[in-house]
């Protein structure tokens, strides 16, 4: 009876120790993963900041104005003026919106858009 109890106790201690080590390693692995992810987040943030700066640089009003001037024959863009305001009744009623086909959709950032 006594030796049985002894064996049982020892095996219990071994099992608990195994479990504890296992949990410890799992925790360490999770922490390493967190570290790695945070590093990745940092890199992405840096990249995002650069992209935002680049977006702002490419969309600076001076450049857009020059581009509008350069492409005037194709786009015909002029500064916004008072006679471009219309009233709602000027807009012809459309019956079938599904006719509008979208093609060549480009994803753009909305970071600079007005909220």
């Amino acid at each position, binding site marked *: 009876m006594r030796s049985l109890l002894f064996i049982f106790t020892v095996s219990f201690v071994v099992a608990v120790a195994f479990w504890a080590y296992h949990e410890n390693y799992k925790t360490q692995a999770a922490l390493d993963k967190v570290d790695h992810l945070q590093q990745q987040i*940092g890199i992405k943030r840096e990249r995002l900041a*650069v992209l935002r*700066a680049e977006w*702002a640089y490419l969309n600076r009003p*001076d450049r857009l104005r020059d581009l509008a001037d350069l492409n005037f024959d194709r786009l015909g863009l002029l500064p916004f*003026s008072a006679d471009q*305001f219309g009233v709602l009744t000027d807009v012809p009623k459309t019956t079938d919106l599904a006719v509008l086909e979208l093609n060549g959709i480009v994803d753009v950032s909305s970071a600079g858009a007005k909220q």
Partner: protein
Amino acid sequence: MIRTPLRPLARILEARQKGENPDAIERENLRIRHEQMRDKARQRAESRLLLLGIMFFCAFAVIGARMSMLAIADPVEPRTHAAGSKIVSQRADIVDRGGRLLATNMETHSLYAHPHQMIEPVAAAKSLAEIFPDLDEERLLKDFTGKRTFVWVKRKISPEQKQAVHDIGEPGLLFGPREMRLYPNGQLAGHILGGTKFGEEGVDAAEIVGIAGVEKTFDAELRDPAREGAPLELSLDLTIQSTLEQVLHGGMVLMNAKGAAAVLMDVHTGEVIAMSSMPDFDPNHRPRPLTQGDASDSPLFNRAVQGVYELGSTFKVFAIAQALELGLLNPSTVVDVRGPVVWGKHKIRDFHNYGKELSVTEILVKSSNIGTARIAQMIGVERQKDFLGKLGMFVPTPIETSEARTGHPLLPKNWSELSAMTISFGHGLSTTPMHLAAGYAAIANGGRLVTPTLLKQSGPALGERLVSEETARLTRAMLRLVVSHPVGTANLAEIPGYQVAGKTGTADKYKAAGGGYHDKKVITTFAGMFPANKPKYVIVVTLDEPVETSGDEPRRTAGWTAVPVAAEVIRRVAPLLGLRPDFEPLQMAGITLASQ
């Protein structure tokens, strides 16, 4: 416990029989009892001491164990709750009211040298001078071959330049990470943003310090880590700022002016939507301040908030509004305008002879100095001072650029009745265009003072009441006539679709060296508000030494110089501000849907 008697009867009797002293027995028993009591006390004290000892041992053991654990453990960051997502750049971004970037940070590199680690200093200096044409080869060679062990070569280099330097293959040339401030829009809003420089420098990082504009005013806020990178939102609108700068620059060139300034302000909130001063500069490459000559000739000088000028007849509005408020007159009251008005050895004249008398409205529309001087006499020195003081005309504007603090208005030393008269038509008191814009905003919004600000506001920020709603309305109606009446001085500001109200001002420049006024150098100003029936925005355009030369003879009055520029600004900016024109738009020829 049974208490043993000190004199047990059996032993006493026995001792008496033997003829012994029974007291000896009592003493003996007493001694034994004392010994027992002493033993007991000692035992208790010993056990207490033991307990205390154990406690102390445990406490010291715990401290000792913790100390040794700390000593043998490797120092690591608390990783489980490190808020990695909050690690952001050292200086917050600056954005406009729509969230568009005005200033941000970029990762870049600095280049430094350890001459003692260099293998071929001569070749390195030669290659560096080729990569960076602005570096002096001689100087570099002197630094590399001298006794110095550390030399800064370049504070900021681009990735291409870094690669080129890397390709030299010199082990003594080293790179450090560097964060730099970037203004992606270049010159745009340069005066407002100001600029930065590197503060404390190390090899691994450098502090970015704001040196002018909002960068300096909000330096501490921008660097505060508690912001967690939240951008600083300005009241500016990038599109409108850009349009204003473009038109103002064009106007300055057309009118042959040496400088120009413009302010566009929301009349209810005091928010500055756009502000420009020409010539301007690129905050990415801030020019050096002038070491000699007039500071106002430097592009760094912000005419809109730093430059104090006599803004001429634009000030007449304040005298007339005050007289209306005081009930001294109404718009149709007739005032004697026979001149010249003589006060001591000074004479006040009008630009033209306006005959015997004019109504108050006509005085404003035709801009009569004599008429306004008479009104100022009615108001009196003290009340005028009080009114202009309330408008903030005696202190620098509270606008949040660091330069604004230096825009001290120039007041007459002795505010005599003559001063009161000349100030009523804008001579003798020098203020910045920003002061004027804030003053006009008070009339435009119905008589409440506003504080000009560069920060985005969440709602109207109306201050103390200056004049009544009714006075403000009457004044605005008169200002509207200045523009809409065919003989009004600002009739060139009449633009289709938008009703503009405003006033011109032409003032001779005083000689910087003293000794009176220049003959042919003027400051022309237009201060206006639109839409006139319910103003939302105030605009002030000031040109420095303009000459309009399209006619037979050069014209220098504001009506021919500042007004056309301001009109063009309003024409371009009003649709962008979302203001609907108040005429029926023309039927557009055949709108067809793209889908059809």
